[in-house]
């Protein structure tokens, strides 16, 4: 009896394995690892130009030098949606495209200004793409970035991912992942933003530079912030752990390093008018100062502190004014109101755009200069002292 049972059980197990098959298996050398996707507008308005960047695998066996090889493979097509494009790519290539390791989603500026919502659908629904893909807008055509031959990193997709990772150590708000983007998109008031990058020729070498952030309304890109304005935005959002405040006064110029900066917002309603109080606490230390002769240490500190506070405030206000002209609530004040005063929010949500125009922002900066860097006085101060 036992033998039959054991045998049957064994057959059942073998049978299980037999039907299990290998539905999902993809050998690595039958896959193309996509590291970047670029979407651009094409002549036909119902279609878009889609290019993907694929990290080209190099056989590790010796003999062949990698220098002649292109580091990446590029594929282009024009298709109405991303999924159509993917099937075209899979048809035209000898391997399957793997999107899970996609690092960036680049949107050409012209496409971004047209309409992005309908193009992003695949990236949200399909399990294959991850929600932490970085979203970026390209000043120019996105495929150029993907084509770029960089010195720093042979694959531009990886370069951009590392660039953003590096920036994230300064503040997490630099990082706009798919989920952040979508989260802002879903919200009724907050305007989505995304970093803008562009390709630069420099002595015959190509470079990717970041120049600000693109601002979207609910479906298209409506404007952009310069790097300076982005700094103001980042400071207003708080959670900054690196950065510089530079200013020059009548006595000299100084660059103070931020070691931490936090922002707290308070909202008050003043008959139909909304007032936002932004209190910012900054821990600074002196990075570099020049000038400031004939001035004592205490005075210098007090002076630096007030100037730094002023500088921070100016930057934030500047960004805020820009956002007002774009009429895009990039700071998420609307969301803050919704969260803390849901009943008030119900009243103003319909005319949020006009309310935002009339929104009053009051920034209180409390800067504290902790350490003075490695030297206590600047060299010029020393000179000033000895001249006394």
């Amino acid at each position, binding site marked *: 009896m036992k033998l039959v049972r054991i045998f049957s059980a064994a057959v059942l197990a073998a049978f299980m394995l037999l039907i*299990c098959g290998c*539905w999902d298996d993809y050998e690595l050398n039958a896959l193309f690892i996509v590291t970047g996707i670029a979407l651009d507008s094409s002549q036909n308005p119902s279609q878009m130009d889609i290019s993907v960047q694929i990290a080209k695998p190099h056989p590790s066996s010796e003999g062949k030098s990698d220098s002649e090889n292109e580091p990446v493979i590029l594929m282009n097509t024009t298709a109405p949606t991303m999924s159509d494009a993917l099937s075209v790519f899979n048809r035209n290539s000898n391997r399957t495209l793997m999107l899970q390791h996609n690092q960036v989603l680049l949107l050409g500026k012209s496409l971004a200004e047209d309409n992005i919502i309908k193009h992003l659908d695949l990236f949200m629904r399909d399990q294959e793409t991850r929600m932490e893909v970085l979203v970026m807008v390209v000043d120019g055509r996105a495929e150029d970035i993907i084509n770029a031959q960089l010195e720093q990193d042979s694959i531009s997709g990886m370069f951009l991912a590392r660039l953003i990772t590096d920036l994230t150590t300064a503040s997490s708000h630099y990082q706009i992942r798919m989920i952040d983007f*979508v989260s802002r998109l879903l919200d009724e008031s907050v305007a989505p933003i995304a970093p803008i990058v562009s390709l630069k020729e420099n002595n015959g070498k190509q470079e990717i530079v970041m120049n600000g952030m693109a601002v979207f309304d609910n479906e298209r890109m409506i404007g952009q912030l310069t790097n300076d304005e982005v700094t103001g935005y980042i400071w207003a959002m708080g959670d900054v752990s690196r950065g510089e405040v530079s200013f020059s006064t009548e006595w000299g110029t100084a660059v103070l390093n931020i070691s931490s900066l936090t922002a707290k917002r308070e909202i008050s309603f003043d008959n139909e008018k909304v007032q936002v109080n932004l209190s910012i606490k900054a821990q600074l230390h002196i990075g570099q100062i020049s000038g400031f002769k004939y001035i004592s240490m205490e005075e210098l500190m007090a002076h630096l502190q007030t100037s730094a506070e002023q500088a921070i405030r100016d930057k934030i206000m500047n960004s805020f004014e820009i956002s007002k002209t774009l009429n895009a609530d990039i700071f998420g004040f609307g969301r803050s109101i*919704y*969260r803390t*005063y849901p009943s008030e929010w119900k009243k103003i949500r319909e005319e949020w755009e006009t309310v935002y125009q009339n929104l009053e922002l009051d920034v209180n900066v409390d800067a504290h200069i902790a350490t003075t860097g490695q030297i206590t006085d600047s060299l010029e101060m020393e000179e000033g002292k000895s001249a006394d």
Partner: protein
Amino acid sequence: MQIDKRKIPGSVMLFSVVCFIQASSLLTAFLAGVTFQDSWFAILIGTIAGLPMIWIYNMLISRFPGKNLLEILSEVFGKVLGKIFGVMYIWFFLTLTSLNTIDMGNFVKLTIMEETPRLILMVLCIVVGAWAIRYGIGVVSRYSFLFSMISFIILVIGIFLVWNQMDFKNFLPMFTLPVKEYIQGTNIILTIPFGELVVFLMIIPNVNIPPQKISKMFFIGYLLGGIHILVVMARDIAVLGNTIAMFSLPSLVTLRLVHLGEALSRMEILFAVVLIMLMFFKITFLYYVTVITIAQFFNLKEYKPLILSIGALILSYGLTLYVSPVKHTLSGQEITPIFWILFEFLLPLVTLVTAAIRKRPKTGKV
């Protein structure tokens, strides 16, 4: 009459309860689609509202020591009515097992095996489960401690890993939804993981501690499980914010976002494996209860020959239940919560009341 005479210690029973509830932490999507950022509140209320339910179970346990649900039913309602209720419970257990197996299939298909047919994943799970059931309750419940500890640890690690992405402002605004949705949310959480604990009434005679202690274990396990689900939900809300309703598996998406340098990212499959283990535990447990309920219903002396065919029934019957996962979710949000109340709350309550009126059991204390 007890079919499976093996005994389990009380602590194993405690952790089985915990594990059983933890396995449902996957299915918080039912809830998140209804109560959004206030889902944690629905869970909190659900946990508190579940206490009377557990109390009813405990009353049944202490009133009928050493008896399982079927025996209680036939003792309280007599032979005919008892058998009718027995059939209803068999159907209920069978459906629960099928639904959970389908959930498992959907989950695995969605997360790690996108192209493998769902049926195969389910068959594999049922076959391995059948193997465990052959060895009886001891093996079925033995790893509850291990699994629940692992998932607690994973929960804590997960919280640390997504700490930098949590935004506690995501809980705001609180309590702005219509009251009906809170009731619905509470109902969902009350019936889908918590109320399913009614299956434990079938294995109570196998626990070798006195009924009073069983009640204590039941309560502690229930609370631990409730806290676990609450924390999972809170974590997901804090990380995902308003996008939480968009995903079919919020807790997995949360863990997908883990990114601490390149090495500590993309780890969600590890978490998926832990969830598979928990789901497996729950399915095996339900499967076991279905098998012994059927065997006992027909007064059989052994249950082993029934295991595989009941497994086949679970699978084939399960496939007929819902046409698509969307319908499943919709039904999970709207219909099953109310429907399950019948089995999880009303019938035990009626049983208890009838027992009090008819003064059953005759010899036992009243």
